């Protein structure tokens, strides 16, 4: 990982994303291989490493016995931050995540989005050199997601290094400078989102309804396609040309063209089989 970049870990459920995060944050032991965080060994200096990272866990684990501000102050104490500095930092962070007016509100009175924002603030209390985000926007409505993204981009612009996992591929393409797609504990590909799309998917995709007529036609024309539920996907270099051909020869009722996305790469690499 490079300093100042946003690095994403993508993969289906059970791919090993969270496990990787937990190994980086010195909570889970390594199962094998080499791992070094800030050039330190997680087995030997976990406290040193943990003092320099901030973690947004997948599960909301704010302290329900405390208000927003107390959550931050209590957390600051775990990092041995002196009380006055902690107070200043906590108020600053509440403003940053737009929770100043909820300062003294107990946790159970917050909405899901507010809780996620408070967790983000909590992760920043020690001015971490590395921020670890495990599914930062899981379960949030679009408004709340956009707010979190905005904050993350701001952090990135300030030169923070961020590692994140996500299931949302649009989130990954928006935020990540580089990412890996992994499955069953193995890294499948690595690169910048746009490069990955270029390398592993065609430039554009034509989606056509999946009917016997269309399938027969595609087979007859020798056009390779991919089955995707009620539609078939036809990757192509030029959607316009292909769409015209298909409309002329196969007469589909539904057809749409779009640029290829990270999701196409993801599904191509990890398959469409359902995971738990």
């Amino acid at each position, binding site marked *: 990982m490079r300093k100042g970049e946003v690095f994403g870990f993508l993969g289906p459920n059970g791919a090993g994303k969270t496990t990787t995060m937990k190994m980086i944050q010195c909570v889970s032991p390594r199962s094998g291989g080499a791992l070094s965080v800030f050039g330190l060994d997680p087995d030997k200096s976990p*406290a040193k490493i943990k*003092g320099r990272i901030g973690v947004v866990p997948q599960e909301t*684990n704010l*302290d*329900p016995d405390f208000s927003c501000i*107390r959550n931050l102050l*209590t957390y600051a*104490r775990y*990092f041995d931050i002196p009380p006055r500095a902690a107070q200043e930092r906590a108020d600053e962070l509440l403003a940053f995540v737009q929770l100043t007016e909820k300062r003294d509100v107990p946790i159970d009175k917050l909405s899901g989005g507010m809780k996620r924002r408070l967790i983000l603030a909590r992760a920043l209390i020690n001015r971490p050199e590395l921020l670890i985000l495990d599914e930062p926007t899981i379960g949030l409505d679009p408004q709340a997601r956009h707010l979190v993204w905005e904050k993350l981009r701001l952090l990135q612009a300030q030169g923070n290094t961020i590692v994140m996992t996500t299931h949302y591929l649009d989130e990954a393409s928006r935020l990540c400078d580089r990412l890996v797609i992994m499955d069953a504990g193995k890294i499948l590909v690595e690169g910048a989102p746009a490069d990955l799309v270029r390398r592993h998917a065609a430039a554009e995709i034509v989606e056509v309804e999946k009917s016997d007529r269309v399938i027969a036609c595609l087979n007859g024309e020798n056009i390779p396609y991919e089955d995707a539920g009620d539609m078939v996907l036809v990757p192509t270099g030029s959607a316009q040309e292909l769409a015209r051909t298909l409309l002329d020869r196969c007469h589909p009722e539904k057809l749409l063209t779009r640029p290829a996305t990270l999701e196409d790469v993801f599904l191509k690499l990890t398959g469409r089989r359902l995971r738990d």
Partner: protein
Amino acid sequence: MAGLFSIPPVTRRCWHVWHRNLIVFFKTWKVNFFPPFIEAFLYLFAIGLGIGTYVQQIDGVPYVNFIAPAILAISVMNSAFFECTYGSYVRMYYQKSFDAIIATPLSIEDVIAGELLWGATRSTMYVSIMLPVLAAFGVIALPLSLLAIPLAFLGGMLFAGIAMCFTAITPSIDTLNYPSFLFITPMMLFSGTFFPLNLLPATFQYAAIALLPLTHVVSIMRMLTLSSLSWTALLSLAWMAAATLIFCVISVNLMRRRLIV
């Protein structure tokens, strides 16, 4: 098995966990300070004055004075035990507090050590609140009874360690009822609390001394409040110190096993 007895690397950061629990405790101090007061009164009236009317003396000691140290010892046991079973389990499993804390420089060993210290602190506070009530009734000897406070801390660590072992292996919060009913309740009755141990058959007496931690807490506590120290206090103290060390170490290692995967 070797790992169970290895000395866990606990740092002074464990006090942050203790401090967190202390703040929560004082946030609801009204709820937390009343039970010790009420409990002291209830026991004194119900057992001391009620049963005491029939059982006037035991070994030449008024019955109320006989059970006063037992009330203190039982409080030591209950506060630490329930804090480090149900209290810790809720913080670990439902509130996910431990997960949140170990993402900071604190290790799981620090967290559990903080919880144990907190359990012992609860015992100490409970006894400190009860002492004035008992003193007001004139059923304990002063100033020797003030040593009940440090004794409460040691006893508290002992029961906190035992409790944390159960918390580390319990599959769910419901199964914590087993140690409560099968271990704590019998111990409350058969540790020389409300009647002298020597009324029990010899085998049971030895079993109580060998296996029931409360026996030793009650025994020392009674020597303090009746101001009748004997050398057996040292034996009990040694038993408690050894058991405390063993259970606290095992509990931290068991918890590590449970939580670090």
